[in-house]
């Protein structure tokens, strides 16, 4: 069972392929930025900072958005459950 973020194939259009499960999904530009950052091994705080730097974040909370995405990745089995809470 895979499911390591590092194994994901990411295209610049936001198309994502999990080579272990055969699953495919799409993410928007911010999601793609988060996945690239996770592959690089950045911490959740660093990822939120990168989002703030690269996107026009005038309202909202990048840290919360990252946490939401992390929850979805966990649901898909792409992040281990043991990391729960690490993003907060």
């Amino acid at each position: 069972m895979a499911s390591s973020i590092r194994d994901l194939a990411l295209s610049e259009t936001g198309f994502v392929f999990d080579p272990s499960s055969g699953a495919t999904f799409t993410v928007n530009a911010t999601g793609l930025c988060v996945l690239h950052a996770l592959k690089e091994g950045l911490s959740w705080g660093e990822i939120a900072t990168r989002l703030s730097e690269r996107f026009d974040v005038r309202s909202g909370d990048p840290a919360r958005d990252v946490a939401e995405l992390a929850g979805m990745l966990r649901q898909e089995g792409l992040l281990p459950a043991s990391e729960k809470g690490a993003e907060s």
Partner: protein
Amino acid sequence: MSRRPLTIAVTGLNATDNPAPGVGVIRALREGAIPGDRVVGLAYDALDPGAYAEEIVSDVFMIPYPSQGVEAFLSRIEYVHERVRLDVVLPTLDAELPSFIDIAPRLKSMGIGTCLPTRRQLDLRSKANLAALGDRAGISVPRTAVLGSAEDLSRVHEKVPYPFFVKGVYYGATLATSYDEAIAAYHKVVAQWGLPVLVQQHVGGEEFDVVGVADGEGGLVGAVPMKKLMLTDKGKGWAGITVKDDGLVDVARAFARATKWRGPFEVEVMRDRRGQYQLIEINPRFPAWVYLSVAAGMNLPLAAARIAAGESVAPFGEHEAGAMFVRISIDQVAKIRDFQSIVTTGEIVRSAH
């Protein structure tokens, strides 16, 4: 690597919404062809679609169903051999395998190679023996019971709890959640395939299929795992994608090692969320989607043909994940002279031989 040109006969030219593997096998052989290679189709029906795909198969001969007797079957193969000089036969259908295995020594004496398991190996992977094979190979298999009569069904839940699949010994699987559903499925299977009927525990998870070729000495020549992306109403894969999961290939490897299987096979495996594997079924032949193995970097049908021809074939390296197929139905324009020829003479000979 250089090799001699081969004339390879392939069966299973039916290509409907539940296609036989023949056309996929032939396309793979064509993909790896060298000058002088030739593919000959062996058809059971004059309207087998693959017989009319003249861009991939040069000559086609009707052959009798194995149920008509081994001698009639062999006699027809001898005739085909006289006409086109076969080097190799690759059978692709479950029901014909016992006959081909039985005549393999005689084919060999004629100079025709095969890449087949023994009858004993064929039995080892039968649905009725799958649990024992799982023990032997160290692979988990869902709980299974063999039913010899309808009465057996009334207490089978003590051994295999509902829901479970009711399966024919060769083909078909119906999910039953209650006794009423199970008994209906039982009678349907008996009417179509006869006894015994198998009951197999329903296990959760995602299904993966692995196509492979084994060398007959316990080794795996190559294996490609695939996840189905779209199913037909018969549950057949209509689209799929290759995946990278060493655990799936390990299941195929364990099967090859435990049985010393020789030839093509397909294993059907469930993988649950914890990454545990359960072996659902082993088919003793290539699946219809085998052409995908070529896209993933392993021409498994060509490897089987070369083994059948007596060549030594080195194991493949890694396959490529993300190779994808989407099946298509097309109206293939056929020549009436081909139809006329196969109906009246039992053959279509397009090559100048």
